[in-house]
């Protein structure tokens, strides 16, 4: 950001985020706010999203040893939790939770990056700029979801033995050692779709673009779209689930399933989860 731009838009940058009206179909560059909804009731934990993410985003395969040291690079991971009150057997199955960068509106990672390598984009994404990153890892330290992954090793030299490198997606940078990376909501797809839409004097249509995880998900547990557009499926879902992007404490009926994780920390995530349902009588 240039100083001129900062000063010109001082009131915009000084505002408490998120604020109502931040995203508006009539505001230039405010016409998109990408959001996600994950239905935990139909997520089967099959890991198709994880593999799709590896394929789309040039994630390195780190190998057993580095995985053991916690240096794995999966931008989306499936967490599996057992019930705390479980008896001898998990009689109600288990809980799966796909966890990716929540693209928080008031992102804890953004404020602490010394070089502004991670900052908010106009369409509500939490951008990560690999070429600006100096690797202080403060963002990861401050991320409550711990969804940021640091390149502890120089993966480009080891993770893609020839000809595996031919699979790399040319739209996504291959990250070298010493930089932080994380889920981008497949920004390369979003940019392409936005560009296409602008050329045709329109907005991106609902369902026109999906991140790799949402596109792969066999059960369709992951929904994605532009929440600014009131006609989009995602906006309707958020509204239906009584989750308000701009609120940190949701006042919702107890029959409604929508919630955001760790809302008490007030990061205002852009991912809404929908509660797992279990037939208590079964």
């Amino acid at each position, binding site marked *: 950001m240039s100083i001129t731009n900062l000063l010109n838009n001082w009131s915009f940058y000084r505002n408490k985020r998120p604020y109502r009206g931040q995203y508006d179909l009539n505001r230039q560059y405010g016409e998109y706010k990408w959001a996600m909804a994950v239905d935990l009731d139909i997520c089967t934990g099959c890991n198709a999203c994880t593999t799709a993410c590896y394929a789309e985003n040039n994630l390195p395969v780190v190998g057993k040893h*580095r995985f053991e040291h*916690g*240096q794995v690079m999966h931008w989306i991971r499936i967490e599996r939790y057992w019930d705390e009150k479980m008896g001898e057997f998990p009689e109600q199955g288990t809980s799966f939770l796909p966890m990716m960068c929540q693209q928080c509106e008031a992102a*804890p990672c953004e404020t602490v990056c*010394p070089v502004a390598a991670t900052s908010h984009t106009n369409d509500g994404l939490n951008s990560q700029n690999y070429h600006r990153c100096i*690797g202080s890892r403060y963002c990861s330290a401050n991320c409550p*979801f*711990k969804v940021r*992954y640091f390149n502890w090793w120089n993966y480009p030299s080891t993770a893609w033995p020839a000809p595996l490198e031919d699979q790399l997606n040319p739209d996504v940078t291959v990250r070298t050692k010493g930089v932080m990376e994380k889920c981008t909501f497949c920004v390369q797809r979003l940019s392409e779709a936005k560009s296409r839409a602008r050329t045709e004097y329109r907005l991106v249509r609902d369902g026109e673009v999906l991140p790799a995880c949402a596109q792969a998900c066999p059960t369709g547990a992951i929904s994605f779209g532009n929440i600014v557009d009131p006609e989009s499926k995602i906006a309707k879902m958020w509204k239906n689930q009584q989750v308000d992007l701009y609120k940190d404490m949701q006042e919702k009926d107890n029959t409604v399933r929508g919630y955001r994780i760790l809302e008490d920390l007030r990061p205002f995530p852009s991912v809404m989860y929908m509660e797992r349902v279990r037939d208590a009588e079964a």
Partner: protein
Amino acid sequence: MINTFEEREVEVERRFVRKEKDIREDIAWAKINSDVLRSLERPRMLFWVIFLGSLALFMFGVSCEIYQYETGLGVANLDNPQVWGLYIATFIFWIGMSHSGTLLSAILHLMHADWRKPIYRFAEAMTTFSLMTAGLFVMVHLGRVWQFYYVVAYPNERWTWPNFQSPLVWDATAIFTYLTSSMIFLYIGMIPDLAICRDNATGFRKRFYTFLSLGWMGTDRQWANFRVTYLTVACFLIPLAVSVHSIVATDFAVSQQPGWHITSFPPYFVAGALYSGCAAIITLFIVLRYVFRFEEYMTMPILEKTAKLTFAISMVWTYLNLVEYSATWYGDDMYAKQALIYRATGDYAVFWWSMNFLGSVVPFTLAFKKLRNHIPTMLVVSILLNVGMWLERWMIVSPTFANGIYPWTMDHDQWPAWVQWGMVAGSFGWFNMLFMLFCKIFPSVSMYEVKEMVYHRSLHTKAHGEPSVNHELAAEGGTAS
């Protein structure tokens, strides 16, 4: 028999005010000069042992860094939640250590505490070098250290600026300011002494000290300007010192990690900083006293005073530490409470309890006069206190990552790899090496201020009829001061 008012005053002072004299008042000024200047020439053998040992440690640290630079930070065995490890812990440690130099040289200067005079010079040097060491850790821990200059705000062809919201930018600014200021302070305070060095040196050293002493002649005008400048920089340095460690504390306090998100962190960090710094001063005091044969200047009463100061600060630190625990315990932040319980009972319990023991219980040895005056005990205790303070910093950084907010990514198995330990050791080597070099090149006891001290002291005693010094002799010794 106390008969007169004067006699009573002398007795009161002997018994209660100055039980023992900080410094003998009959030291001739020439002797001061020659004693201190001798330290620039022939130290004891131990000097070389320490210097070479430190150099070796430093070289080991450097090779660790080269290895890490080439291979990636993975060699340090850091991982996703455990992103910082020993590097940041040791960084805070060294930043903290720097504070006591400022305490002694600036704060006590303003408070006219006379006893600081023989020891403030090396304390101020300690400030400078520990800041430089701390700066190294910032570099070492960066993933892409070659891009470090992105943190600096300067106009560039990318039209980008650092993020002024980030505590790390405050950090970088504050530390850099503090480092430059304390270097200036150190240097300014040294100018009269450099002139003495110049007058007694020959050859290239003469040129060296001539250059550094900036034509100091000891004129009244120079002295007047010197006093004003010195006082100004001292005044400037005090808020800076407090703010630097407060800012380091905000690195943690503004973040959301449980165990960090605590309001009392800034004073807690400042107290911890002064604490470890004072302990380090005691250690270096004992070492220098022996190595450079400074027994007459770095006297036992001064050591005792430093020890008392350390004890006082340790109690402040203990109080703030307990505040932190109780605020967490009685607060309703579930994450912080779990993190606290984890620290006390989890994988780091041994270190956590030893930290508390070393930081809060061991300083009670300083409450005993006998122990305060026993040099080996003081050496051991001061080192232990610093071990405790280093552990404190580690206990702030690591257990929190191991047991953070998010349960899935908690990581209890991480143990720093040898590369990290190597670099921690290397930092001690680097610090000691620089410090020893400094003491070898520059007068580590402030000559002119010791002279002032002796002079004041003798004026004082003369007024009260005690045996006095030969002032003519003293005046001859101080050539240019």
